[in-house]
């Protein structure tokens, strides 16, 4: 199992490094969206709940690009068939794809957080950073699990580019909600406040519930 996950993950990262199809597009999209928000909101800087909202909505839509592309190579170049021929646990594919999406999101945030701090955020990002990284990690886990599920559900349909976001967006509303609520006190103009404990708890619960659900149902998406 661990060997298979490592092999799959290594292959995904290698493919991304070769094609550079997903992560650069996500990062570029996020930065462009910040610029769009600047003009759309007609303000030079944001803070507090507005900052949290702009930041998380942008990340969510950027994540959607990655979710759309997650299984495309498997579908179009026979990756699913090759994987199913191997004597490997199918859950390994779920774990590897979730890990890959988590990694892609983390790299995206390495670009998006500095860009946000530079372009839009009014207070300094440094004092908020440690707590923000924690919130990002919890939210990424939820987005990665649900995104992998939605992507796997959508990839075999004829209208996959439409189905994946239609499925993933409502499913991810609680993540955006909790993450935005958690980051609001971090991004206050007067300097970071403390996070109410229930938001990280909600994120953790969400991650747990969907990790278990995904583990239970993912096999059924693969057999053919």
């Amino acid at each position, binding site marked *: 199992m661990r*060997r*298979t996950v*490592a*092999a*799959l993950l*290594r*292959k995904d990262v*290698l*493919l991304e490094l*070769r*094609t550079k199809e997903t992560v650069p597009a996500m990062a570029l999209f996020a930065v462009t969206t910040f610029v769009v928000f600047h003009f759309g909101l007609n303000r030079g800087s944001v803070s507090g709940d507005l900052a949290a909202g702009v930041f998380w909505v942008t990340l969510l839509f950027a994540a959607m690009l990655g979710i759309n592309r997650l299984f495309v*190579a498997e579908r179009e*170049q*026979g*990756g699913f*068939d*090759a*994987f*199913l*021929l*191997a*004597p*490997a646990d199918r859950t390994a594919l779920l774990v590897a794809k979730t890990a890959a999406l988590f990694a892609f999101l983390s790299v995206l945030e390495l670009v998006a957080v500095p860009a946000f701090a530079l372009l839009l955020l009014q207070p300094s990002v440094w004092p908020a950073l440690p707590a923000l990284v924690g919130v990002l990690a919890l939210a990424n886990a939820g987005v990665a699990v649900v995104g992998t599920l939605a992507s796997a559900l959508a990839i075999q349909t004829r209208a996959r580019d439409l189905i994946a976001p239609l499925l993933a967006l409502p499913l991810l509303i609680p993540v955006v909600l909790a993450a935005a609520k958690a980051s609001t006190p971090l991004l206050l103009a007067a300097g970071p406040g403390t996070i109410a404990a229930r938001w990280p708890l909600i994120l953790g619960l969400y991650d747990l519930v969907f990790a278990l659900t995904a583990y239970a149902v993912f096999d059924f998406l693969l057999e053919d």
Partner: protein
Amino acid sequence: MRGRVGLLGHEPLLYRDLTGRENLDYQARLFGVDGARVEELLERTGMARRADEPLRTLSRGMVQRLAVCRTVLHDPALLLLDEPLANLDPAAVEAVEPLIGRGAGRTRVVTSHDPGAGLREADLVLGLRGGRAVIAAGAQEVTEADVRALYR
């Protein structure tokens, strides 16, 4: 059962943006096969020199040779081959023969569109028409004309 079958169909089941060696390395890890086996196969199919170029830059014949490597990578007991020699030049056919040909020492199920060549290789012949077995006999008992009659 899975893991003892080698499948070679119309699709190579390899990633176009990875090199041959990377593709086979990945497959080797999936099957838990030693990396030395990859090098051995690349050598035997004459692909060692071009193994570090992405698949999309290779000719179809070369991709087919890599697909043959993938098929026999884990030393399967049963081979399912659909037109295994498609796009291969005579030298390549000779190179893959000991891997997927008669001499490979594996049970093979081959579908072919060339009755003559198919008959020369086979022990048993199965002719299907409309989903029903019309011919099912030893290869000696079946002539090329019998097979051609299926398509009339």
